[in-house]
């Protein structure tokens, strides 16, 4: 067997262990982003001028600054400065969560705006408070509507998580680099890493599509999601 291949096979268990770390980063970041995104979307649509303005600036920053720069800034800079002893894993999760939160805010904002006006009015007419209406009527609808856009975010965050190695989180990419620097089988190892990422991308996309189908309400159509 060529050494390129045997190296990959020998190190596969080690690389695959990294995929658990990668999955941990991605899932926690997506959930953090979900919370940030929903809160900000609600703030953007229902909040006062001051809230809207602050959220817009947050989104502008996190959509405009590269993930690598944010990782360096937070892990070596801000967290250090604030004497927060976050691990690389935690730092990556926070940075990716805040980034995807900025994108998810726009997704959910679009979804809220596409809801027919009557939904909110009908809820108020039944005596629901604003927060009850948002929790019970608005959220269940916009979350369903946003799954396709969410699956797009998932694939972006998964790929961005490969940058965690620059601050040393032991995920797939960091492990691949570690093995490659010892065995000099860069080509085959990085191709193997690429295949793992490829499979994770499609596994997630398919899982989210299944989720979308299982949550589908007969006759319920999207009024446009983006």
């Amino acid at each position, binding site marked *: 067997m060529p050494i*390129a291949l045997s190296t990959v096979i020998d190190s596969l268990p080690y690389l695959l262990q990294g995929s658990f770390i990668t999955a941990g980063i991605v899932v926690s970041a997506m959930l953090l982003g979900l919370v940030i995104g929903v809160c900000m979307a609600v703030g953007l649509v229902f909040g006062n001028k001051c809230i809207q303005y602050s959220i817009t600036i947050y989104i502008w920053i996190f959509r405009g600054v*590269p993930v*690598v720069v944010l990782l360096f800034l937070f892990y070596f800079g801000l967290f*250090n400065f604030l004497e927060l002893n976050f691990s690389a894993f935690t730092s990556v999760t926070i940075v990716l969560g805040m980034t995807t939160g900025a994108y998810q805010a726009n997704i959910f904002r679009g979804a809220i705006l596409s809801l027919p006006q009557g939904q909110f009015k009908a809820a108020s007419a039944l005596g629901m408070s604003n927060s009850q209406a948002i929790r019970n009527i608005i959220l269940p609808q916009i979350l369903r509507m946003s799954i396709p856009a969410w699956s797009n975010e998932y694939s972006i965050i998964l790929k961005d998580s490969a940058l965690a190695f620059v601050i040393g989180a032991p995920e797939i990419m960091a492990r691949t680099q570690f093995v490659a620097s010892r065995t000099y089988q860069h080509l*085959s190892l*990085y191709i193997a890493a690429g295949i793992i990422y490829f499979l994770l*991308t499609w596994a997630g996309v398919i899982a989210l599509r299944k989720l979308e189908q299982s949550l589908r309400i007969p006759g319920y159509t999207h009024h446009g999601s983006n």
Partner: protein
Amino acid sequence: MELSPFYQELITSLNRGLMMSIALIIPSVIGGVLIGVLAGATRTFGNPVIRKVGDTYAAIFRGTPLVVQLFILYFGLPNLGIYLSPYVAAVVGFTLCSGAYQSEYIRGALLSIKRGQYLGAQALGFTTFQAIFWIIVPQAVRRAIHGCGNEIIYLIKYSSLAFIVTCIELTGEGKTIATEYFRFTEVFTIIGLYYLALVTVAIFILKKIEQRLYVPGFGRS
């Protein structure tokens, strides 16, 4: 106001890095759009074999992280005796990856053009080339511009990965100085502002282009 020596050195390096970033971004944007148009058109109109090739290309480059692609180009290819300079590896990686995403938008735009538009042109005596050039392309451009513009913004941000393959651009220059002085917060805040400026200017230009091309009611049906 006189800047302290640290900031003088920082700004000088970052400006040098900015030039390198721009030198990476411009050819990659152009190459990405060209490949996107080519791949998008073949994925829409090509015969089944060519279409399959185009789809596979797009799936691979969209399904794997850009940083893995860069590592394969720069650290992997030498295993086959192919050596790329850091700059070339970065531009090739950015172009191929961006082209895959662009092809997706181009394909969507082409698929959304109604057949009647081509039929209408034919009925007036347009040659195939004239119909494509005067009717199909102007409509496809309008439908694709928003997605392609977003992809260009992404590309500007991901140009920050070039330093990983030792092509020292904005992020790379900053990292060197930040490590040397151990002043990450200031350095990376300023780098962040550089990128924000780049991205904001790009968004502004793209908005202007979109406004230029705006046609009332177009693309909503």
